[in-house]
């Protein structure tokens, strides 16, 4: 096995064991062997994609997605200085603002979607739960995301979801920032009524929905 391939196998093993120290060591080893930073990032992204798939298959769990997100952040921190010198590597990381709308304090679905988007390569800014319309709006103005994602689990917080969409619409910004809605109380009919794309029935579909929106689908 060539040195590069061997190191990539070791990186994958360290990542899948969620061993931060070993992963750091192997990334540094890859750099010592003059493997370029964009190749390492590409390899890590594939590993993350695989981890997302394993989560959807029920082989790994939410905390492991959280740890994977942290590992990727650590890896990017090591590689960032080298990436900047590669002009051909201009990472375009779409930003997504995510939150549970005002009045709703459910977390688990939002957390799963957040981590699936994170391991799929999106930069997710989680505003948490019980988020007022104005906070979604102000954060969108500040961060300029590609997507603003609203979650609601109870029928009684659907009106708050509508308030948030209305605020963006009132400023003509509902198309600049694509607004995506999801959660236990949301279905395709409701999404149609509210005039916002439906995020899907689960975290797996949420990844497909975001990719379709960004592809213009």
């Amino acid at each position, binding site marked *: 096995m060539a040195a590069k391939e061997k190191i990539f196998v070791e990186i994958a093993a360290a990542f899948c064991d969620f061993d931060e120290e070993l992963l750091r060591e192997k990334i540094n080893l890859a750099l010592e062997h003059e493997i370029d930073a964009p190749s390492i990032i590409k390899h890590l992204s594939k590993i993350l994609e695989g981890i997302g798939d394993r989560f959807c298959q*029920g082989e790994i769990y*939410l905390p492991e997605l959280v740890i994977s997100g942290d590992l990727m952040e650590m890896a990017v921190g090591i590689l960032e200085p080298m990436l900047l010198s590669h002009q051909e590597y201009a990472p375009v990381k779409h930003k997504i603002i995510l939150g549970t709308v005002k009045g709703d304090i459910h977390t688990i679905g939002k957390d799963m979607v957040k981590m699936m988007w994170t391991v799929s390569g999106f930069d997710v800014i989680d505003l948490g739960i019980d988020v007022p319309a104005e906070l979604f709006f102000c954060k969108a103005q500040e961060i300029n995301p590609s997507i603003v994602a609203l979650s609601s689990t109870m029928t*009684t917080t659907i009106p708050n979801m509508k308030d948030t969409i209305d605020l963006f619409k009132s400023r003509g910004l509902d198309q600049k920032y694509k607004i995506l809605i999801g959660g236990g109380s949301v279905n395709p009919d409701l999404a149609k009524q509210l005039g916002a794309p439906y995020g899907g029935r689960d975290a797996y579909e949420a990844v497909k929905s975001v990719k379709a929106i960004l592809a213009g689908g």
Partner: protein
Amino acid sequence: MATARFWEIISRGEQGDSLILKEFDLAVFQMAKKIVKKYDIKFDPENIVMVDDALIDNAFKAGVELLLELGVFNIDTGKVIKVTEEEIYETLGRSKAEIELGFGKDLIKLKSRAIEDPALPAICGGCGNPVTDDIRYKLYLAYAMNPMIDYIEPLPPYKYRGMLVKAGTPFELAACLDNIELYRKACRDAGRPGMPIKGKDGVSAIADVSTNREDIGYRKTDHSNVYFKPQMKATYENMNRAAQFTQYGTYVSTAGCAYIGGFCGGVEGAVVCCVAEAIAGILIYNGVINASCVMESLYPSQTTRKSLWGTNLASAAIAKHTPIPQVWGAYMTTAGPCTDMALYEIATATIGTVIMGNNPFGVAPNQGVTLNYCTPMEPQFMGEVAYATTMIDRKKANEIVQALIPKYEERLLAKNPPKGKTFHELYDLDTLLPNQEYLELKDRIWDELEALGLKRFAWKRP
């Protein structure tokens, strides 16, 4: 008022160890994983209804250990509420095994049920689906009229004065009060004025507490849920609920879903968290009734093999080692009313939970989200299955459940359950009785159940 122990314990959330949320979440995962290994708790698809008493004992010990090791995280202060082993066993020792709900001739006794208990359970009917105003009262009356249903779980308010009900607003308060008042009217009109109601239907704590009114709202003889946040986390909003409910004098039921694939890890970790939260609820929320389960998180359901196994094991652990009455059954199906799949789901969930010591409640068809897709027939069937389950043992229950799961599993895993029909389509809106189509379907499923060895319950004859 709330006991001295309640104030003492929740005050630890002001003084305990400070953590950030993520640290606590990951600590739950690591600790659950370690404890699952220590107690050798392993998912066994061949025994969805388990007969292994050592496994049940270990699930209880594991839950206690998780609670002792981690405590409960107060999200509002970022501090951990720790409890001691002595406090756990003292509180369990003082807990009541029987609670009287409702009054007069409609009074029911909600009892702690043993594993394989031959006593008939109390049946709580209702659902979580929203309904439109044209059928709201009729549906409530249909639930109240159904003799199989001992007490009612309310549907959430949907619209008020033509608007969708918005959480945390005066509209929500008014809608929730309006909703419970309508339930009371339905119970009176059905000739069951003392029928108890299981709360709550509001989202915000202010709506929950403002509906506690002896005249038209929730009475002291009802019981109301207070929840944990997944996993092992509490908020002051929920402690406010617990404090007010207790001081009002009503019964607190503690509820939580331990999510498979969430912060407790796999189904084994979910069982451990479920047991730990059930015990924590008695201490932190003054709970006197347990209403918790293990649930799938990616595609919310409680009728996959893993979620059935997890809920059954956690229920068995609580039933065997505590005196707390338990309320859980076919809370949610993925399929809709008047479909074979929904009835199979109800049967599998009910058989397991009832034989493991629960008083069943349900049913929210279509994951509880579709408008008007709920009828009293689902809880009636749940009740019939629950009564029949008191006549079998765990081994037989497991055989029946194993035979039922393949009848719907493929559709569940494909996330393609049939939607079914609405209350309008399935019930005569004048007589409030089910149509022939639904009765025939239920009979057909019963024929299948009887062929599998679950005999319909029949009242004693002279």
